[in-house]
């Protein structure tokens, strides 16, 4: 089938973009990398007849430091984030997730703002953003607001964004030096695979005792979720196989998965357990990845 005809506006500044958006609101759809939008266009499911192209707005593409946070422009491409010395040093869990998004082609085009805009529970940048206590900046003509990441999503493909707002920035926390982390994704193949289950965690250990655990899960509920009970349980406990088993069980219990062609609900629970158990076990055995604040290993 042929692509639907759409009108594309390509403003050169944020002000211009916000101006356009304030006039057209739900009649126009923002597009950044287009890796989700193009699929919608092809499937004929895009309601809007006009696109607001964010690719030529330099103010939306940057990575910078601000005290204990790193700020990422919403239209920053995955490729740029992967290469960023700042993020590699301070918040490498995001790199770990982005490395597993799509393929090099998708990472060359796709943006982090687009992943938030799509608001899929299987969006792979989102679980790390949850445990990096991220804030999403929404801007409209004349004003802006910041929303905590867990308040941003309302359900699959639903967010609090108003039609005259753009996502302009994602602010993430710097991880504590010495903390362990993982992002694990289970898909049916090695690349360009939609997550069946994903999990992200930051674990701070002192003498093998858990100072804190932050754990989030993807593709197992209407939005990405934090496994709060598991996090609380872990606090101040010794990291051993019994604790890992209990954490993984609690996390699996906190899910509300569905059955679809990519897996049964029952399996998604089992896999949540498995993915967390294996990743924490690796950390316990000393093979986990650790935040170093080093600037040499950009990937």
């Amino acid at each position, binding site marked *: *089938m*042929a692509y639907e*005809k759409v009108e594309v506006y390509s403003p050169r500044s944020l002000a211009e973009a916000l101006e356009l958006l304030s006039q057209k609101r739900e009649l126009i759809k923002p597009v950044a990398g287009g890796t989700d939008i193009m*699929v919608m266009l092809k499937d004929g499911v895009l309601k809007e007849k006009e696109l607001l192209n964010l690719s030529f707005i330099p103010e939306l593409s940057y990575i910078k430091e601000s005290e204990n946070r790193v700020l990422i422009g919403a239209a920053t491409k995955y490729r740029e984030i992967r290469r960023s010395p700042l993020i590699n040093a301070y918040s490498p869990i995001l790199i770990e997730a982005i490395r597993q998004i799509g393929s090099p082609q998708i990472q060359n085009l796709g943006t982090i703002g687009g992943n938030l805009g799509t608001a899929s529970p299987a969006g792979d940048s989102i679980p790390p953003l949850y445990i990096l206590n991220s804030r999403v900046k929404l801007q409209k003509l004349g004003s802006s607001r910041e929303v905590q990441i867990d308040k941003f999503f309302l359900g699959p493909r639903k967010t609090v964004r108003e039609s005259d707002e753009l996502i302009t920035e994602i602010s993430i926390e710097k991880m504590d030096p010495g903390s362990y982390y993982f992002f694990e994704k*289970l898909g*049916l*193949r*090695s*690349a*360009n*695979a*939609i997550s*069946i289950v994903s999990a992200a965690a930051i674990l701070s250990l002192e003498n093998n005792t858990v100072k804190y655990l932050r754990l989030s899960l993807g593709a197992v509920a209407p939005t990405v979720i934090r496994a709060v009970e598991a996090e609380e349980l872990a606090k101040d406990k010794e990291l051993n196989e019994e604790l890992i088993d209990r954490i993984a069980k609690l996390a699996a219990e906190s899910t509300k998965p569905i059955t679809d*062609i990519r*897996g*049964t609900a*029952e*399996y998604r629970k*089992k*896999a949540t*357990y*498995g*993915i967390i*158990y*294996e990743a924490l*076990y*690796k950390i316990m*055995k000393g093979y986990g990845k650790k935040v170093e604040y080093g600037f040499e290993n950009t990937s």
Partner: protein
Amino acid sequence: MITEAVSKYSYINKSIPRIDSNDKVRGTLQFLTDIKLENALYAYTFRSKVAHGKINGIYTEDAEKVNGVKAVLTYKDIPALNGYGAIVPEIPVLAYDKVRYYGEPLALVAAETQEAAIEALGRIKADITPLPVVHSIDEALEENAPKIHDKGNIARHTIVRKGDVEKARSSAYIVLERVYETPMQKHMFLEPEGGVAYIDEEGVLNVLAGGQTPYRDKIQISRVLGIPPEKIRVKNTPTGGAFGGKDDITVQIHLALLAYKTKRPVKLVWSREESGVAGFHRTGSKIKLRTSANKDGALLSNEAIIYLDSGAYQSFGPTILDVSIETINGPYRIPNYIIDANLVYTNNGIASAFRGFGAPESNFAIESMMNELADELKIDPIEIRLKNILKSGEIGPFNNEIRHSKGLEEALNRAKELFYRLDPSGPFQRTGVGIAVSVKGVGFGTLPEFPAAAIEIIPEGKVRIMFSNVDYGQGINTGNAQLVAEKLQVPLSQIEVLHSDTKFAPDTGGSSASRSTFNGGGALLLACDKALSELKTEAASFFMTKSDSLSYKDGHFYYKDKSVSIYEVAKRLRVRGKSTRFEATFEVPRYSEAVEGTLEVPHMVYMYGVIITKVEVDELLGKVKPREVDFIADIGNVINPAIAAGQIEGGIIQGLGYSLIEELNYDKDGRPLNINYTTYPVPIIADSPLINVEFIRSYEELGPFGAKGVGEVSIIPVGASVADAVADAIGKRNYKLPLLPWKIV
């Protein structure tokens, strides 16, 4: 590892790069769906949104009114036969009384612009009363199942038997009975079905579309339009992947019909989703197998009930069923057997040819059975096979004398050195090793085949070779060029290939059944013989001597200290108004009669292979990772080792998809759920294990320079070897493919 054996040949046994690779790598090759014809109409297909239903009416008036629309065709517009199908022409070109699968074509639109065509599509109305949908083999067989065709839901039923199974079974030491199931698999070729059609100045209807068998396409088109085949030209090359899915008609008749009716060039290309909905797929299967053996592993009897899901119509179904019958006994000495084989209608799209053609389905059953028998009898799985394989000269289960099975024995002996588990890569990983044997006939068994091919010696210094087999990426144009270069002893650069076009090439048949090298190559070598003999006579007259006093070497005839090249001789022929084109027909050796109850069993020439698959299973996640695969092949003399190894590697990866992740599913309304690359993931190169391909030294006297075939041999045993390896890793056998993670844990 590919070993280029020390070879006495100049142009074969050599890994010459594919002659079309340059254009493909640069992206400059024009596929048929890339063609833009001036003044062409855009064509689209109006499809049923009901999987099973009675058609009350199809209303096109509103669509015809759209500005720019040049034709809206329904079954009423079909000049002659409203049917096609490679074996039985029962598939409606456009549905008329009933629809039998979701996406079945009801009408065609051609318009000046894409917009007009799409607008018109939206205005066609179909009034269809839905009927209950038949989702599976089991449902189709129920007593009160809705009838998909008037004759019921069994398209073909046959029983093939030998000996006394009851008696053999009752004296056996062990009897195992199992049910094996395999999924419908999509071909997922990169280029979807499509092409162009136009009527040329001479009034010939040209159909240029991805396909595999141009001359059969031509006949099928001619039957529908009611015009003689001579007024039709079909060109199928270059085709961007086929795997059997383009062997029967896809767009060809629709294109022809539209060009014929509108008298305008027409372009019709299916979207990926249309290919997903209405393109062919592999038959799903359910096979009940009961096999008995002695304590030492010697097989005594084999009882099979085979059900293949043909979908809504028969395309190649009847002959696919034959191959599944032939495969269910493996390459084994089985004195007593009974095979009850059934081709079943459901509302699941249309099943057709797919690499292996019924063999992967049966192979999964018999090879899984062999592995389990070995387990139960505590015999090594290689030894139990060595004990049972038929040796050269023995009479096989279908009364055929086995030729050249030495390769299989050698391959099994080599397999002993490769059959081991890998070390696990982590604490939750369990490793396992599995094995299976592949056997597949080359060509169409007892069905008569007379492939013709031609060569033309062009005085300017080229040899043009012409055959109708299609190069859809498997490399047949390179392989056949190498055969001719070898035969004539001229450099490959002097060979020009013209193929798969009924305008230039004689009818060599198509590319299917691993037959193109054997049949196309065979016919080409005969054409070379003919050329050499006639050129020699001419050369003799040039030297004023008898032709038997000439010798031939490197493209030249020699007489005493003088020589003349084939091109100079051709020039003499041309000057005298004689043709320098030489055509020959190859009568493919076969058994004259099919075994009772079959259409084409047995084959005379078989390819063999042994596969060893080494996997790792994550015990918590159930994910199976194939880490290493060894394949030892007996495909006869290897014309081009790199291309042959590529075929084997490709078959393995496609087979791993089939074994682990691929599965075409339909919802309760009979709508396919997996229709594009998002919903039907196939393995990508990053999923590929390390693959080691080895060739047994082998020479098939009947084949061109000793070659057999290669296209299908490797995909066939992958399923059984993967299931065996997974069982080895987790201690539990699985009987149903694909082994998705949630079936493991």
